């Protein structure tokens, strides 16, 4: 059967779909297949549908779009795939092709676009937006809206914002290790991203503190912007490229770029693919997750003791996306008093997945409940994971399960005793 691929999907992405030989080993790795048990909601089924789209065999692309929308882009299928299908690239290219040829209409689509283009990608606006949201929540507006039935399901289901005291902006520019700390003579540039600062500003401060205490010089470039991951996932690759170019330029001077959000890190590591030029490739090569940097270079400052039974949960874009699984565990093992307890399926998605928990609240809720159940069953009193969305989602589902536990970024446990 000779089919000429639809030019709307780029050929490289089409070729990737051909790597799949339909063996099915990816099915059990997929959270949406586990939940819905439908072929069209499995990686193999979605690859097949994307291939059919590219071959022009789909009569109405709008009919298959919901199946692609329900993909979390968690990449668990890439970890399971013996044939090496690069699923993430495939679904992102397909979403971009669909967005290009059949842009979504309607209020929801407008809202998402506005959110992505006007807010997420712009630090200052985002900060203001979060301040307003917190104020609204404090006044009980969400509760009210929910009671009056005025709130869309997505917002009603959104996790509560973590409380955060007003903080001074993270100081830009160069930071040197404090007096008395032996410097390593290595300067790293810190990538700060978009939502980590307004949601979990403490994680950036902890990252800075740990790096400095361990003898690194840290520079926080002022011209950096959002990584663009959410845009890529939603099929707005062109907009993402603008951000990527700005970041490549902002970090041009740096020898090493460190990031502390799995989703951002994964996207930064794929700039080479996104932009397709040598500078972007070089940028992608010099970036790493902060836990990878610290695990390879070794801790010189002992973390403060922390007596707790803790579970480490792999963020998808760290484990599946970057193949980083041992570095955070190895570092956490050095925290005095901390007992790392295994829990079922730590590599499974928690259902946060960028904007997914807002756009697919039912499915994200079911997947989040699974995650909470596995953590509750392990009987832990602290949960560790390295991505702001996951922190928020796990926190909210533990609360919903009546089992509230602190959820922290691993870097927060590496802060030395003062």
């Amino acid at each position, binding site marked *: *059967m*000779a*089919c000429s691929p639809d030019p709307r999907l780029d050929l490289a992405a089409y070729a990737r779909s*051909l*790597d*799949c*030989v*339909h*063996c*099915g*080993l990816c*099915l*059990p790795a997929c959270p949406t297949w586990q939940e819905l*048990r*439908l*072929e*069209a909601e499995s990686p193999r*089924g*979605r690859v*097949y*549908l994307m291939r*059919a789209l590219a071959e022009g*065999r*789909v*009569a*109405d*692309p*709008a*009919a*298959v779009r919901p*199946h692609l929308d329900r993909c979390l882009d968690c990449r668990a299928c890439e*970890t*399971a*795939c*013996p*044939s*090496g*299908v690069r699923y993430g690239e495939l679904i992102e290219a397909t979403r971009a092709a669909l967005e290009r040829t059949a842009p979504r209409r309607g209020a929801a689509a407008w809202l998402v676009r506005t959110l992505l283009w006007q807010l997420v990608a712009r630090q200052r606006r985002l900060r203001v937006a979060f301040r307003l949201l917190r104020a609204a929540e404090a006044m009980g507006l969400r509760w009210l809206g929910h009671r009056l039935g005025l709130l869309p399901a997505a917002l009603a289901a959104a996790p509560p914002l973590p409380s955060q005291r007003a903080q001074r902006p993270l100081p830009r520019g160069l930071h040197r290790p404090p007096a008395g700390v032996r410097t390593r003579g290595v300067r790293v540039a810190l990538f700060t991203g978009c939502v980590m600062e307004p949601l979990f500003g403490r994680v950036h401060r902890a990252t800075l503190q740990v790096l400095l205490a361990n003898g690194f010089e840290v520079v926080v470039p002022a011209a950096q912007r959002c990584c663009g991951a959410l845009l890529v996932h939603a099929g707005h690759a062109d907009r993402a490229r603008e951000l990527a170019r700005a970041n490549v330029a902002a970090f041009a001077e740096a020898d090493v770029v460190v990031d502390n959000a799995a989703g951002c890190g994964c996207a930064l590591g794929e700039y080479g693919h996104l932009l397709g030029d040598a500078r972007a490739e070089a940028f992608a090569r010099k970036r790493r997750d902060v836990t990878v940097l610290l695990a390879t270079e070794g801790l010189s400052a002992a973390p403060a003791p922390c007596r707790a039974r803790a579970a480490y949960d792999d963020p998808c874009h760290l484990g599946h996306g970057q193949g980083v699984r041992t570095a955070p565990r190895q570092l956490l093992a050095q925290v005095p008093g901390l007992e790392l307890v295994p829990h079922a399926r730590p590599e499974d998605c928690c259902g946060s997945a960028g904007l997914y928990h807002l756009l697919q609240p039912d499915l994200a809720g079911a997947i989040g409940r699974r995650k909470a159940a596995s953590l509750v069953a392990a009987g832990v009193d602290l949960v560790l994971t390295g991505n702001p969305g996951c922190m928020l989602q796990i926190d909210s589902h533990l609360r919903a399960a009546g089992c509230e536990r602190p959820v922290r970024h691993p870097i927060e446990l590496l802060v030395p005793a003062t």
Partner: protein
Amino acid sequence: MLRPVSNLERELVRLLGAQRVLADPDSLLAWECDGFTVHRSRPRAVVQPESTAEVQAVLRLLHAGRVPFVPRGAGTCLSGGPTAGERAVVIDLLRMRQVLAIAADDLYAVVQPGVVNLDLTAAVRHLGLHYAPDPSSQSVCTIGGNLAENSGGPHCLKYGTTADHVLGALVVLPDGRLARLGDPAGPRPPGVPDLPGLFCGSEGTFGIATEITVRLCRDPESVRTLLAAFASMRDACRTVSDIVGRGLVPAALEVLDQSTIRAVEASVYRAGYPAGAAAVLLVELDGPESSTAEELEEVRACAAGHAALRIELASDPAERARLWKGRKGAFGAMGRLATDLYVLDGVVPRTRLEEALARIAAIGERHGVVLNNVFHAGDGNLHPNISFDGRDADQTARAMAAGNEILQVCVDLGGSITGEHGVGSEKLDHIGMMFSPTDLEVMARVRAAFDPDGLCNPGKALPQRAACAEVAKWPQMVARVLGEGEGPA
């Protein structure tokens, strides 16, 4: 886009609700094929019942309208078994995934058909038990699918295939009535036919099992897994013959050839198989500590006697899992070689493995196809894999022609055209190599005893002409037995 809704669709939605009925033709593309991607066809609809009663209601409706249907599990079949014809409705059983009962002392479990093979073992592991048949796809394939195909797997050398592990089944017949086949309690009384045995391997053509009673096995006291690498396939095959010839019964005896090793090592399932070897033999021994220790030395001696390049013993469960991981991921890993993969399944007498492999290699060369071998050496069950580009008509034709000749070689050597993947739609043209028209007619009569109207997975397992024979009158005995098992309908 608005689409006319058929009466059938409306009725199905009335029975199951809109969430569990898929009839949008574009989404249905995802159900076009199983692991045998050469044959594709889009079903008319997909439904997902969640109980025996729902399966009965759906089948009654389809039977009344004379609409053909096809049961389906996880779709990892390699012979087109669950691929539906265009008029057929797929009965997708994945949502029936409960382990209904575990009888640890009596060593059996009752499961719904959508329970994943490995999930069953996970559910009984704490009791020191496991479910023995272990197809490569065991992390995803279902017990219902295993029952339909009489699936095998590496450990079937010692423990037997699915048929040896199914004690009974509650079956919804194609007209929606309910029949109970077999019984987990004790030996079968004399004079009662082995109906579970008959049902097992019927490839979804006899009805839909909604409760399956399977045997559970106790975990062995000790397990030893050994890898031996060889410079030639001949040495590997002779080692296999030697091991079996000495009266040893390993739990598994698996061989991977050089190109398979390379594909596996390039994949996420890399197992550390030596890249330079022409063949790798995996041997697993299980049983009491004392006997496996002794057998291990014998196996070692066999391998050494055939100039093994390297012999490696898995020292702990993690290492053992690693060695098996490569074998289980082998089919998928071959996806790295070309866009499509034709996984063949044939059997030859074990003593003729060497000859069969040589002839298969020659066939591959003559047709100019990329061919790899990974096989259950202990029982002579070969899996020659042909990599090809399904978009190229010539390549596809050559792959199919080579496959055809390979199956002929298996039959010529005294073997079979399928060891465990089934006939499905793939081997309809080959079944005549093995069976006479009379043999086929007997099979068609048995099938008609279960499905006189020919609605259940039509066009599979038996060529249509055999099914056309006069079949409706014969099987009164079978019908009576089935009738007795009927529950409240």
